[in-house]
């Protein structure tokens, strides 16, 4: 029997505002417990929420970035439940009327084994603004639990997808795409360790061809892509095995344990809270006008899709290369800066996606920490373009730059990598080679093409690798004809 997994994601992105969503308290990470908890954060009697318009601007940016409907009027609601890290006994969120409605993102699912890479559209159901809770601190005081309310009231945008993904790879590709996008438009710092980007994944399975959704289980709070992949794979196997053994799936919330690689049920549907949502009477409906949208749009950077199209049109890059370069803002910026510094676009694209990315991956570095900056890379590419050095020599120069040397021309000079482009000198070398290898010349004349390459090799060797290979080819061809 063939099974199909169906996956939808709910992602909590922490918005990059200086102050909390309903008060003036700071949102900075890592402060001493409860030093960023004002009277509103700790829910003293009588305090009231006031909406931080910056958080709304972040939501509008996201809505524009995924071509979503942005509600002219949305409503904040109270989600009621008791927990020590929830000071008011309710979370202010949006329920029936969210600020961002239906939208979509296009994801690149990478090749796996024999399966080639492909593009896919993931539909966004909605995105709504809400406040974060505080957190429990265990062990600070012997035998007691503490509460740190610094995080309470931090603005979040919860982004919900349709159940559009059909594999762990697609889910991870979506999560990575979203992770890049929210950083690209500057609404989230993307720091997963600090909890700025947290995913809940809804997983269900069904027989292939069925159009009915199976019962889903929700994997909570995944804070790395690796764990997400493992958790979905485990959960999918578990659900299929359960069904094949004649069991049924109960709707539940589960947690992923990275140590065992397993998911474990936290609470079933029956144990779920009745949140008793109702419109928050302390807040007026949120209005977003066309003017608000226009103002936010004017502040937004060029979006990845638009930039990709521009790279294809202006630089003649392939769709794949353009997509790769616009997968992150950093990479795109690095490429654009390299081109702006005088490099040709195609070689710049090849080097950024090739040597630069390979080095960064090998050393687990981000572009921000790259020892080679776009100006240096551009200088290097210019020396290839003007035939000063060969591609092979360029690799040596790049290696030297990576290891801390600064000046391309100085490296070329010091290492003696300048290639010979004087046709007289090259002719002299070739004459020598022809004289020294009459057997090869004979072979070539007898029709053996291979012998030509051997003669090129001899000429390059004789020039100690400095001769311009194109010129060697050309002169040799002339001499042998």
């Amino acid at each position, binding site marked *: 029997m063939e099974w199909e997994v169906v996956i939808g994601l709910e992602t909590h992105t922490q918005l990059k505002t200086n102050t909390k969503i309903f008060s003036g308290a700071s949102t900075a990470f890592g402060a001493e417990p409860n030093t960023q908890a004002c009277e509103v954060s*700790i829910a*003293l*009697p*009588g305090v009231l929420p006031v909406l931080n318009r910056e958080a709304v601007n972040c939501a509008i940016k996201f809505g524009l970035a995924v071509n979503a409907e942005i509600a002219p009027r949305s409503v904040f609601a*109270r989600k009621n439940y*008791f927990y020590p890290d929830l*000071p008011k006994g309710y979370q202010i969120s949006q329920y029936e009327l969210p600020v961002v409605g239906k939208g979509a993102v296009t994801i690149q699912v990478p090749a796996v084994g024999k399966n080639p890479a492909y593009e896919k559209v993931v539909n966004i159901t909605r995105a709504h603004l809400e406040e974060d809770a505080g957190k429990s601190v265990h062990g600070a005081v012997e035998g007691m639990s503490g509460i740190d309310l610094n995080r309470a009231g931090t603005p979040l945008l919860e982004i919900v997808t349709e159940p559009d993904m059909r594999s762990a790879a697609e889910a991870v590709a979506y999560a990575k795409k979203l992770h890049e996008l929210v950083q690209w438009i500057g609404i989230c710092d993307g720091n997963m360790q600090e909890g700025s980007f947290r995913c809940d994944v809804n997983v269900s399975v069904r027989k292939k061809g069925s159009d009915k959704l199976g019962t889903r289980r929700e994997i909570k709070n995944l804070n790395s892509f690796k764990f997400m992949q493992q958790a979905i794979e485990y959960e999918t196997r578990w659900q299929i095995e359960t069904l094949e053994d004649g069991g049924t799936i109960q709707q539940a919330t589960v947690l992923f344990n990275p140590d065992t690689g397993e998911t474990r049920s936290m609470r079933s549907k029956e144990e779920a809270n009745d949140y*008793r949502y109702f419109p928050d*009477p*302390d807040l007026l409906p949120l209005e977003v006008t066309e003017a608000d949208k226009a103002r936010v749009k004017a502040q937004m950077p060029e979006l990845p899709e638009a930039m990709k199209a521009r790279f294809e049109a202006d630089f003649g890059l392939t769709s794949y290369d353009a997509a790769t370069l616009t997968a992150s803002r950093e990479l795109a910026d690095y490429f654009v800066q390299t081109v702006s510094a005088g490099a040709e676009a195609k070689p710049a694209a090849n080097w950024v996606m090739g040597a630069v990315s390979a080095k960064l991956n090998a050393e687990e570095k981000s572009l921000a920490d790259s020892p080679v900056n776009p100006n240096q890379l551009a200088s290097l590419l210019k020396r290839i373009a003007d035939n000063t050095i060969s591609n092979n020599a360029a690799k040596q120069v790049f290696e030297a730059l990576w290891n801390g040397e600064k000046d391309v021309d100085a490296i070329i000079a010091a290492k003696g990598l300048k290639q010979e482009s004087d046709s007289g000198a090259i002719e002299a070398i070739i004459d020598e080679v022809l004289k020294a290898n009459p057997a090869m010349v004979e072979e070539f004349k007898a029709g053996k093409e291979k012998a030509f390459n051997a003669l090129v090799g001899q000429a390059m060797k004789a020039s100690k690798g400095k001769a311009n290979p194109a010129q060697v080819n050309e002169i040799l061809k002339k001499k042998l004809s």
Partner: protein
Amino acid sequence: MMNRSLKQFGEMLQTKKISSVELTQTFLARIAQHNPSINAYIALDEAKSLAQAKAADALIAAGKASPLTGIPIAQKDIFCAKDWPTTCGSKMLANFVAPYDAHVITQFDAVGAVNLGKTNMDEFAMGSSNETSYFGGVKNPWDVERVPGGSSGGSAAAVAARLCAAATGTDTGGSIRQPASLCGFSGLKPTYGVVSRYGMIAFASSLDQAGPMAKSAEDCALMMNVMAGFDERDSTSLNREKEDYTRDLAKPLQGLRVGLPKEFFAEGLDASVGKVIDEAIAAYKKLGAEIVEISLPNTGLSIPVYYVLAPAEASSNLSRYDGVRYGHRTAEYTDLMDMYCKSRAEGFGAEVKRRILIGTYVLSAGYYDAYYLKAQQIRRLIAQDFVEAFKHCDVIMGPAAPSTAFKAGEKVDDPVAMYLQDIYTISTNLAGLPGMSVPAGFSNGLPVGLQIIGNYFDEARMLNVAHQYQQVTDWHLKMPQGIE
């Protein structure tokens, strides 16, 4: 002396006939004498009050006085006042000392008024007799066997017994106007959004509104000048230009159209109260008013709608009292759930629990549409009734409460009978309209209040209508026996 108006107290202070310290001491002495039998105040702090009085005297000496500078005002214990106990009449907050000032408190501080003390109230403002207070019931100064009304019962008794120059109250369903009626003074609930709710402990956020409780309409106008105004910390506070609520007091009432809703004079109204109201209406006719019969057809639905919406909001507003960060926490508990249950079971009184249960029920999955949503729809119909009515009249008049003050204990076991006390006041809260109660006479020696309801933001006109009546009557100057 104690019967003087705020204006007269202000003149005495500014002409140095008396200092604020002396005036404050006079009131504190009266409180020491009468409060034990009335129980109007639940927190007093002589040192703090006198320090404010001293500062007020300095302001007056420096020629920087405004009308309420140096005047001792009683504050309902629903307003957070920095370093003052702020209990909201509940065991839950019996030990809570507010670390910040409510907007209303800040406004009074800014003009140099003196905080004379915090007044008793129904627990979390839930009640119409002040009998739900953790700190004991308040006695009606007109008859100590009887209740002062509620929930602002402490402020009401303090104003009636002249234990303050004026007081603040809050009104969610009638909590300023019903006690004003039962205790014989003037009380005003402003249009929703006119007075900031910041720092005012929430009962039902979409209905709560603070207002003045004072002897006369003129006093209420002076209090409104201090209390009203935009506050960016309250998202429901309205950003309107500052207004002088005394500006129209002297206007004649010739041609004023007074609407009498037939539903306010139907079954349920005590006949002797009805008679007093009829006489007040006759007085208005003499002042040149024209009487128009109007209808507010959904009046009968206001109590059921209110007892869905107010408890729904309250059940959520009161969730923060969980024993975790402040307030009452039970002494012994086995786990978190046990701590929540015991702390809340011990900290809240019966009426508060009843409303939390009702509110939780009406918001529950499967019941929300039938109760909460339906109630919201009817709320809009009730507001629409008033919009229609105000096409035919300038103000609406009727009784503020269906009866005079009832005996303590009389209605405590019958919540529905208690809830009916607010039958004439609740609909204005649901509509967000301003309303007043002014003394209009007596029935069997007990005060009766005339309610005046204005259109949105028509406080100045309401005050004018009340003030002109108080120029030709002296009901507002009557004092209970035994408090001199």
